[in-house]
């Protein structure tokens, strides 16, 4: 057990910081105020991820045969941390490099690999995640979007909801039911669906967490070639589980939260308020929550580095991250006071970003269920 960074990791962190200073525009705060899904950020992400790719950083953790450089998971974790801390300039492309690409590497045909992996590693393609449905949230396996075989194609009908990033997406990692007789986990398939097919309709859902966050995707008689199916028919659940096994720590929200706490402290210091012991306690508490989330995330990265199978430790990290995010979101409102009531202000942006921490990509309760069963060995209800 040791907690030091290698020389290479340290240098990478420095190089990255230098790169970010140059690569982020002057008005980055304005561009990023609506989160990675906004039109402005999606557009910027292609330019930015392209630059990361040029330096070999975008997919450095991928195997070299797929455009990576076999870098250890730590390198990618350092990158993810830096990206989230500054508001995710990769936009939605963090999903591509974290789990969509790796799923295609594992299950894709040669044609799919050559089509998608090269584009992803160049940084000029946007994906969205078509999982949730109106009646399939936490209980995702109850999804009913139907893909019926029609010769060389599937005819897809159904509806997805809460889909982030899809207004600008080129492709959707879509979960469909290919066998309606099979219940639950069986009978689900993955389609790598181009978003420009006829019958795909995207509608924005007005939401208080910000503009351009949520969408519905209506699928009406969409003809999707069978060649777009990832892996064997009806095996989609296993593919999705494989793809998402580490994604609970894929978006290090604590990094953003920690930066916000620093900002709060600097702000308080500038206003001469940092001598207030009460404020010191609140800031110290928030910092401790962020640090706990960080070390618990690192633990999962370490398990991945050791080639250990995914465990409930990733749920533990996720809960710690959510706790930090929520606490900092609230503290930001409190410290900035009524100034936070302005849309796009620092307090407001942080609060909106933190609000959904316990829901997006699996709720707090679902994570707690998994910890209770898998880590604590408690019996099912």
């Amino acid at each position, binding site marked *: 057990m040791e*907690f030091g*960074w290698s020389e290479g990791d340290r240098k990478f962190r420095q190089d990255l910081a230098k790169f970010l200073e140059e690569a982020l525009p002057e008005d980055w705060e304005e561009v990023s105020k609506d989160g990675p899904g906004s039109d402005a950020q999606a557009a910027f992400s292609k330019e930015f991820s392209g630059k990361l790719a040029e330096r070999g950083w975008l997919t450095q953790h991928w195997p070299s045969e797929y455009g990576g450089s076999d870098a250890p998971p730590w390198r990618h974790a350092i990158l993810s941390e830096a990206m989230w801390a500054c508001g995710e300039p990769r936009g939605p492309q963090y999903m591509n490099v974290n789990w969509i690409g790796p799923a295609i590497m594992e299950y894709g045909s040669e044609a799919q690999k050559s089509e998608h992996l090269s584009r992803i590693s160049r940084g000029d393609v946007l994906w969205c995640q078509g999982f949730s449905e109106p009646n399939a949230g936490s209980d995702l396996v109850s999804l009913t979007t139907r893909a019926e075989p029609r010769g060389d194609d599937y005819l897809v009908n159904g509806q997805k909801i809460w889909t982030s990033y899809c207004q600008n997406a080129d492709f959707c990692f879509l979960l469909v039911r290919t066998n309606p007789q099979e219940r639950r986990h069986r009978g689900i398939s993955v389609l790598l669906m181009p978003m420009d097919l006829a019958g795909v309709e995207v509608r924005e859902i007005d939401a208080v967490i910000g503009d351009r966050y949520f969408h519905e995707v209506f699928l009406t008689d969409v003809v999707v070639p069978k060649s777009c199916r990832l892996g064997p028919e009806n095996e989609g659940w296993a593919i999705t589980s494989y793809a998402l096994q580490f994604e609970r720590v894929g978006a290090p929200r604590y990094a953003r939260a920690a930066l916000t706490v620093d900002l709060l402290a600097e702000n308080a210091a500038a206003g001469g308020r940092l001598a207030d012991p009460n404020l010191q306690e609140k800031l110290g508490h928030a910092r401790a929550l962020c640090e706990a989330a960080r070390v618990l995330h690192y633990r999962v990265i370490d398990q991945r580095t050791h080639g250990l199978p995914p465990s409930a430790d990733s749920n533990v990290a996720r809960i710690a991250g959510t706790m930090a995010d929520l606490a900092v979101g609230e503290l930001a409102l409190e410290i900035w006071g009524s100034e936070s009531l302005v849309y796009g202000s620092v307090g407001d942006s942080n609060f909106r970003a933190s609000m959904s921490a316990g829901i997006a990509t699996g709720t707090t309760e679902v994570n707690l269920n998994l910890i209770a069963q898998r880590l604590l060995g*408690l019996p099912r209800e």
Partner: protein
Amino acid sequence: MDFELNTDQTAILEAVETLLARQAGPERARELNAKGGYDAELDAALEAAGFTELVQGNDTGPLEATLVLEAVARHAGFVAYGATALVAPASGHTLAGPVALALAEENGPVRYGASARTLLIFDSQGVRMRPLEPGEAKPVRANFGYPMAWVPRDGGDRLSPDVALRMRAWSRVALAAEAAGTMKAALDFTIAYVKQRKQFGRAIGSFQALQHRLAQAAVQVEGSRWLAYEAAWSNAPNEAAAVAAAYAASATQRVFYETHQQNGAIGFTREHDLHVWSMRLQALRLEMEGVAGHQRAVSRARWIRAEA
């Protein structure tokens, strides 16, 4: 970066676990609680096996001592291992052990005070080392799982402010590790209990309302443990030490509440093991300025930087 134990660490932990399984544990703690004593035999065994010299060792350091401290706490050891093996070495002096810690500006009794031969008294200017003669400390009845005593807070040799700061940071790392081990044991005990206790025809541990709260507590225990290890490996920087202590000390509150709540009435009896760990959590929560003090120390170390 490597979260797995190396071979040396594994060997150390296996050895100390074996020793503790034989010489510590809830039975022994209950016996010593009743007598109000100190486990001189365990202390001697830890020393004989070299566990009190880990900080100064050639191939070992504070991280190994912290791993041992967590284990001692999990086994409810009745020894001042943290203050003696982790905090005292930072003084640069060889102090007669056991060592106890006190704050000058507080009046309450301190852990292991009556058995300590050296008292480290932290005050606003730093720290003083004060030998304790037999009889100088006065044991007092206390219900918080450790032998407590009134100690004199005058006199002693003052160490340099830098050294004092280092020792203060190590006291926070030690506190976090000790809290982590104590919480882990209380939580594990409770998990085992809710799996076998049946009400309404089923194990109470199958109720989701209880499961979620135990799972939350487990997150805080894990966070405390890893923050303590990381701070120890990094040589107790002021900020990381304060972060570990702030996080762990505030976690004790929740773990205390959840473990007692889920053990029901029997959890309050001396016959049931829970109190051996749970009551200690309150003492740890208050130690060295308590949660709020550690939180302020985080702020000072990170954003004010004057001292911590």
